[in-house]
């Protein structure tokens, strides 16, 4: 491999790499605004200037291809002076309204001003005024004054999404960004521009002014929007999820995620219609009751039906651990065969970038774990459509519905559920389906539990809890903590944040199983996963540490043998 | 004098002294606070009554109304006994200290002392030794490490300083050739005060007295920054008040002892030259005793608000390496003096 010397350090690089890429791969940070690893080179910010021996002037490292034997200085006096000058120049028309700006705390301009600027401006004239608060699209707000014209957002729309929506207009210091006439910034990935904007010019309208970034605690987890399983950070404050940002994973989602995932996959966690504590239907009303009472009621009711009069339907967004235990419970403890998963494929909703047609996060997991009817060791059993038709014809009288709102998914199922004699649901929120339920168990959402999902590629990825339920403690459960979480007491207003009495599905299932006389020894999701790893050859050698932050690609092709549970 | 009469007279004396002591103690606390305030450019208690003169009563009332807490880890009997010992020692010591000369009234001879014991000084020394038990008991029985450390420090300190105190007193006894307090006072007529005859003895006694009463700069047993409240950390309500009382009563007794042993007791030099009637002489002499007593008590308080506390090792060094040799030296000097006189 060819070599290049940066700051006296000999570095190997791949032919064709630019200087900034070679430096970055070897841990040398060259400041930059307009360059982005996933976008084309624009070279307009001039901040990445470096000194290269035998070149007459300083050159920008983002567009200079590295060549054998090149000697680069990133910290020489000349480079530092140039950087200062560039920073001063960029700051001439920047309003410096950091106290108001939402980007403060994660702003590249703010960071670089502290790191690379002299801290004083010679510019005493009135700053340029531009339009502020422009709604570029339904989800993105634009502030013209803060913009430093790096063109990252324009290039993102052009190159990643392929929708030409944004452009520069005007010249010189009046240059600003706008949408093409008659267009809006409304592509399904539009909000990624708020992440890549190095300043606070483009902001997330959903999150605007909700919280300062340093007040929140980020949790590395997975988006629950579709089978892609984009890696995300879930930002929480006072036990409330406030926003989602994508987390880089080149094997899954690179730097991006879709707007739907960003906006619509966390609101139900904070919602007021969360189920807190088990509920029993008494005189037509769902009344909160104790866990033991709910278990006992479920036990006595289910025992009054014959085995083939009962069916179970589970969401295909259950975690691998939940799936394992639910399947074990239904097939072994209840000794039932009518058990299937609800597939949520919306034809035509996917695209070639990230969004998948399959809206469930773990459908591939069911396939790989071999828990589908007909594939399991116990054999036979009705499939989803057959279960539905059997309910309709009255042959199935009781249903266990796990983490799935059938009616919310397809209103036609209202007729089906109303025919049931007994419906148990394990639900995160009260919804159309729970209105027919006789017993409702409160399930933790994906933001409140540990677990794993297998995405459509067969990649196993970890979800981690970001919100605490009644039985969790942020510090003891190793969850990410903000300064407030660390030093607050029960007497502080933020210490009194709402906590739901909910449990992960596997825990509810364990409880039910023990009511039926079978004790599972699991006390945490990790133990279930370890058992799966021991019994299922597909998962051999895996544990939560191995799966880690970025997940592991399962060797799906090598496993031909049917897996038994 | 018949037995009955002796009992009645003694009882009256005891009651008078007890009442006077209690009142004095209350006001000693008041003046302690006032003097502390003055030394620090403040004005001190001034809310209860004019110039705050009823403050002591408010304090007593407050202490009476406090809840009496006995820690679970405490030895209850000892914990209760300790303040009683402290109070008993403080009050009974005064019995042998003469306030004024004997006088004749109604054809009988009265003396300003409850018990004119011929081994009075021995009695005082014995009782102050008993006082150590109060502090040691309270420290040990509280079941608290702070109390225990305070108690242990206190007993070590009191035992160490008792020796130099005893040798200083020995000098006085040597000159007076008696253990009777009245005889000691009588031996100091005119300017023959022991403070002049044996100044080193006076200093060693004074320092030892400070140490024996646990007053600053020797208040290590209750050194707040290290031991919270020392031996009385775990005391509250009237039990605490008992310690408080005994501490100040001890201060009065030490002052009275200093006056008796070194400042000529009730003696006023050259008083006989004025040719006053016997009544006036008695009144003046009692007045002189009280004046000297008040001055020494003021001195006690004054020192407390001027001098910082010694470190424990310094305290022991001073006790054993300075005060003890000095008191021996004093004894030698007195022996020589006794040969000359």
């Amino acid at each position, binding site marked *: 491999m060819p070599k290049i010397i940066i700051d006296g350090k000999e570095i190997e690089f791949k032919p064709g790499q630019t200087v900034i890429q070679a430096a970055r791969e070897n841990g040398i940070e060259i400041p930059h605004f307009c360059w982005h690893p996933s976008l084309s080179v624009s070279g307009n910010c001039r901040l990445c200037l470096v000194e290269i021996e035998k070149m007459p002037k300083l050159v920008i490292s983002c567009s200079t291809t590295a060549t054998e034997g090149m000697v680069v200085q990133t910290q020489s006096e000349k480079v530092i002076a140039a950087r200062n000058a560039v920073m001063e120049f960029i700051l001439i028309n920047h309003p410096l309204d950091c106290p108001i700006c939402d980007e403060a705390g994660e702003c590249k301009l703010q960071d670089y001003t502290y790191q690379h600027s002299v801290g004083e401006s010679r510019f005493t004239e009135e700053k340029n005024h531009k339009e502020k608060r422009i709604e570029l699209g339904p989800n993105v707000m634009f502030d013209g004054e803060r913009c430093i014209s790096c063109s990252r957002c324009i290039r993102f729309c052009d190159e990643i999404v392929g929708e030409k929506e944004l452009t520069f207009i005007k010249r010189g210091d009046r240059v600003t960004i706008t949408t093409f006439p008659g267009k809006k910034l409304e592509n399904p990935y539009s909000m990624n521009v708020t992440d890549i904007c190095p300043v606070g010019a483009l902001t997330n309208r959903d999150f605007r002014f909700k919280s*300062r970034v340093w007040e929140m605690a980020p949790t590395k987890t997975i988006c629950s929007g579709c089978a892609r399983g984009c890696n995300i950070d879930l930002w929480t404050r006072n036990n409330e999820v406030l926003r989602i940002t994508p987390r880089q994973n080149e094997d899954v989602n690179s730097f991006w995620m879709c707007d739907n995932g960003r906006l619509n996959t966390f609101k139900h966690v904070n919602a007021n219609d969360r189920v807190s504590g088990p509920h029993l239907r008494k005189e037509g009303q769902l009344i909160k009751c104790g866990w033991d009472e709910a278990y006992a009621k479920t036990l006595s009711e289910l025992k009054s039906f014959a085995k083939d009069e009962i069916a179970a339907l589970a969401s295909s967004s259950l975690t691998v651990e939940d799936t394992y235990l639910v399947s074990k419970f239904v097939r072994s403890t209840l000794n039932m065969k009518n058990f299937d998963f609800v597939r949520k494929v919306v034809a035509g909703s996917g695209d070639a970038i990230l969004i998948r047609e399959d809206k469930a996060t773990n459908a591939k997991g069911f396939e790989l774990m071999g828990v589908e009817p007909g594939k399991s060791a116990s054999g036979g059993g009705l499939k989803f459509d057959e279960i539905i038709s059997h309910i309709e014809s009255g042959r199935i009288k009781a249903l266990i519905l796990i983490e799935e709102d059938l009616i919310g998914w397809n209103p036609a199922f209202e007729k089906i559920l109303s025919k049931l004699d007994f419906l148990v649901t394990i639900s995160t929120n009260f919804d159309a389906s729970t209105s027919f339920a006789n017993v409702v168990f409160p399930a933790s959402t994906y933001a409140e539990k540990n677990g794993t999902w297998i995405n459509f590629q067969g990649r196993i990825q970890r979800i981690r809890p970001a919100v605490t339920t009644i039985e969790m403690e942020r510090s003891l459960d190793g969850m990410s903590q903000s300064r407030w979480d660390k030093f607050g007491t029960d007497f502080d207003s933020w210490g009194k944040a709402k906590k739901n009495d909910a449990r992960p599905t596997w825990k509810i299932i364990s409880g039910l199983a023990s009511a039926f006389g079978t004790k599972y020894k699991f006390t945490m999701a990790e133990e279930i996963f370890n058992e799966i790893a021991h019994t299922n050859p597909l998962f051999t050698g895996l544990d939560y540490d191995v799966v880690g932050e970025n997940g592991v690609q399962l060797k799906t092709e090598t496993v031909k043998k049917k897996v038994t549970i | 004098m018949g037995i009955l009469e002796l009992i009645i007279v003694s009882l009256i004396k005891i009651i008078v002294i007890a009442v006077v002591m209690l009142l004095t103690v209350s006001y000693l606390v008041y003046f302690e606070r006032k003097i502390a305030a003055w030394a620090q450019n*403040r004005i001190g208690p001034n809310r209860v009554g004019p110039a705050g003169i009823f403050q002591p009563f408010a304090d007593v009332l407050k202490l009476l109304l406090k809840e009496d807490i006995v820690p679970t880890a405490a030895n209850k009997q000892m914990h209760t006994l300790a303040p009683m010992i402290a109070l008993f020692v403080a009050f009974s010591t005064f019995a042998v200290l003469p306030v004024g000369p004997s006088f004749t009234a109604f054809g009988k001879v009265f003396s300003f002392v409850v018990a004119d014991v011929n081994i009075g000084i021995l009695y005082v020394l014995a009782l102050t030794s008993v006082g150590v038990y109060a502090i040691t008991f309270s420290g040990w029985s509280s079941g608290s490490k702070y109390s225990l450390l305070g108690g242990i420090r206190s007993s070590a300190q009191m035992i160490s300083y008792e020796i130099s105190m005893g040798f200083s007193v020995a000098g006085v006894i040597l000159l007076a050739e008696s253990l009777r307090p009245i005889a000691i006072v009588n031996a100091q007529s005119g300017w023959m005060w022991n403070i002049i005859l044996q100044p080193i003895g006076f200093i060693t006694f004074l320092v030892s007295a400070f140490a024996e009463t646990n007053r600053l700069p020797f208040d290590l047993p209750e050194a707040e920054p290290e031991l919270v409240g020392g031996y009385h950390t775990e005391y509250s309500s009237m039990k605490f008040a008992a310690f408080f009382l005994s501490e100040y009563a001890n201060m009065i007794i030490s002052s009275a002892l200093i006056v008796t042993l070194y400042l000529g007791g009730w003696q006023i030099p050259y008083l006989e030259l004025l040719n006053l009637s016997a009544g006036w002489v008695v009144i003046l002499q009692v007045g002189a005793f009280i004046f000297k007593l008040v001055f020494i008590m003021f001195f006690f308080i004054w*020192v407390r608000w001027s001098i910082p506390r010694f470190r424990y090792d310094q305290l022991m060094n001073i006790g054993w390496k300075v005060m003890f040799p000095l008191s021996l030296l004093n004894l030698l000097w007195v022996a020589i003096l006794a040969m000359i006189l």
Partner: protein
Amino acid sequence: MAKKNRLKDLSFGQRIYITEIAKGLGLTLKNMFKPKFTMQYPEVKFDPPASYRGRPVLAVEENGQERCVACGLCSRVCPALAIEVQAAETENEKERYPEKFEINMLRCIFCGFCEEVCPEEAILMSKDYELAFTNRADAIYGKDKLLTPVSRLQDRINFVRQFK
């Protein structure tokens, strides 16, 4: 380097200690007769100087416009986590304002860091030192108690401008 006064460096007079004690006693005695500084508090109120750090308040302009833009720096710098701010959007030129601004006076330690860090000169230490409450809820001062007209804070504003 400062001269170390070790035991061996002391003069004989200092070593026998008695003269030094006498000096100390003299000093306290002298002070007993000096004028007293006590203030008869409930009757006579202390009027603090501009440098005094009383309870923190939020400045509000004469036209009713509050200065705070809810940047949250005071909340971040507060070593005692006393300040809680929730921002929201307004139509004003400065598009951010505090929807909720609470100072927990049980937590506040009157260090004045919030004032020092404030970019808008909005949070200022007032001269108010009489703070007593009987329950925890009363100790949380909301905007109703915090907003104070600029005119009443002029003294402090001048001080802050001079020394910040």
